[in-house]
């Protein structure tokens, strides 16, 4: 704080150019969250937060977002590697495909999933004929979350891979390592930090997914009603429950962010021993 004032007071250092605009954004980001916590504090908070509806939603949210993260790691890591290192025709189109879900509204994602994998959908009709029905299932929730959040992981991992000095790989290849070994023992450890950043983004985005879920997976307690859906319905009936759930989701997100940051710091120490 004192440093802030000192910066303001020095004439030839126009610190306010940075401080005042930032303040606007800080207030916009901070005030609503503060208001939410302010309103949540009360004797009903725990009865609202620990109600069966909110606990069921919390559990489902944690299970589905964790599954999403695992799917993103398993499928996104190799894809990120391909995008970072291989050169092939149609690579631009593939990059566009991976980036698109990030900018698309979730409602478009949900509709697209429904049109593709719905019971009467373009591919869903065939799936249905072999006995697989996806809409209104927990799998559909994971699919919706993966669609909107896995590209964030791919993006982060791709940048992580791209940042690695190619000479290191070349050296390993010269020493007789194959591409898998280069990936496993050189690329993956060196990109660890980018991975974790991608993980944070993917996990929190999956946790907050609403639009695609309600369209593709619907809303059923214990099966497809994740926390954001429970908050929306709580908002309609009982604002107290919605606020309590929102604060819980905020706390879960803060814990996740904090945990990831710690891991990130530790991995930095590991990969860059001083």
């Amino acid at each position, binding site marked *: 704080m004192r440093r802030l004032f000192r910066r303001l007071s020095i004439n030839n250092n126009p610190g306010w150019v940075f401080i005042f605009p930032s303040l606007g954004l800080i207030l916009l980001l901070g005030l609503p969250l503060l208001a939410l916590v302010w309103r949540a504090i009360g004797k009903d908070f725990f009865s609202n937060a620990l109600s069966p509806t909110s606990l069921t939603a919390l559990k489902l949210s944690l299970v589905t977002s964790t599954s999403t993260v695992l799917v993103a790691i398993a499928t996104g890591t190799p894809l990120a590697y391909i995008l970072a290192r291989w050169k092939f025709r149609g690579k631009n189109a593939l990059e566009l495909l991976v980036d698109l879900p990030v900018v698309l509204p979730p409602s478009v994602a949900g509709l697209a999933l*429904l049109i593709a994998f719905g019971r*009467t959908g373009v591919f869903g009709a065939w799936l249905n004929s072999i006995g697989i029905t996806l*809409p*209104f299932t927990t799998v559909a929730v994971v699919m919706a979350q993966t669609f909107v959040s896995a590209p964030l992981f791919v993006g982060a991992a791709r940048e992580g891979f791209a940042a690695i000095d190619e000479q290191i790989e070349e050296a390993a290849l010269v020493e007789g390592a194959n591409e898998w070994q280069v990936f496993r023992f050189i690329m993956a450890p060196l990109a660890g930090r980018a991975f974790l950043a991608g993980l944070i983004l993917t996990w929190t985005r999956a946790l907050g997914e609403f639009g695609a879920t*309600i369209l593709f997976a619907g*809303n*059923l307690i214990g099966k497809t009603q994740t926390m954001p859906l429970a908050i929306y319905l709580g908002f*309609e009936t009982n*604002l107290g429950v919605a606020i309590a759930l929102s604060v819980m989701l905020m706390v879960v997100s803060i814990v996740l962010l904090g945990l990831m940051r710690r891991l990130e710091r530790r991995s930095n120490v590991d990969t860059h021993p001083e």
Partner: protein
Amino acid sequence: MKKFTLLVFLFAAILLASCGPAATATPAPTAVPPTATMVPPTDTPVPSTATPAPRTLTVFAAASLTGSFTEIGKDFEAANPGVTANFNFAGAQVLSTQIIQGAAADVFASANHTYMDNLVTANLVAQGTPKDFVTNVLEVILPPNNPANLQTLQDLAKPGLKLILEDKSVPAGTYSLQILDNLSKDATYGADFKTKVLANVASYETDVKGVVAKVQLGEGDAGIVYVTDAIAAPTLKTIVIPTNFNVVAKYPIAALTKAPQPDLASAFVAYVLSADGQAIMKKWGFTTVTP
């Protein structure tokens, strides 16, 4: 530096883009005050055909009123030059919460009395002003090809069916549960009818439009919605719910006490209750209150 300018520009574009839809939902600041009064009088006489200052009327209406109110809105705009009628269609429960939390609306039309009463309690609607303007009943809808081959109401209890209902916070959802209660009291359906039917529910949607869309796409085998929703989606098959089991939904409408455009608000309410307005409501399948 060039990069910085580009960034600022991009940020501004994002801001603009994200403000767009929000502004249509609660267009309070865009509601232009009657500027005509501020214009200094000119010597030349103003011709009578001069267009009045543009004004915006904001109506919050239950999702089941989407088709009918859109048409009424066009007529209302035609009858009142310079007026733009903006609608926010959603579940009545969402709208009522939005109004209580300070959304600037002129008129509220609900699909049940509960959410209107909430506004009366909050002094946002004057006591005694809400008027019932239509009633509606419910119906079972089926996808055009009727994949589960449902013929009667009893079939709703068939195991393995995918039924789509509204959440109980949505008026139509409460009505659906009441209908299932009514059916369960009847010996032909059996006391466990409701339990069996509810075991088939695949999703509780947040408004009737969600139910219609999912049944229309064939994702659900059946849904319970208003008769008017079924009329608006003519490709759907229907199963009629007999009057003795059905629920009559009464729709109240009222101008809000904090309406930014109070005169337009009461004019719109009057138009909905007028013979012209009622004729449009009837066309969309509602039962009018004043025959």
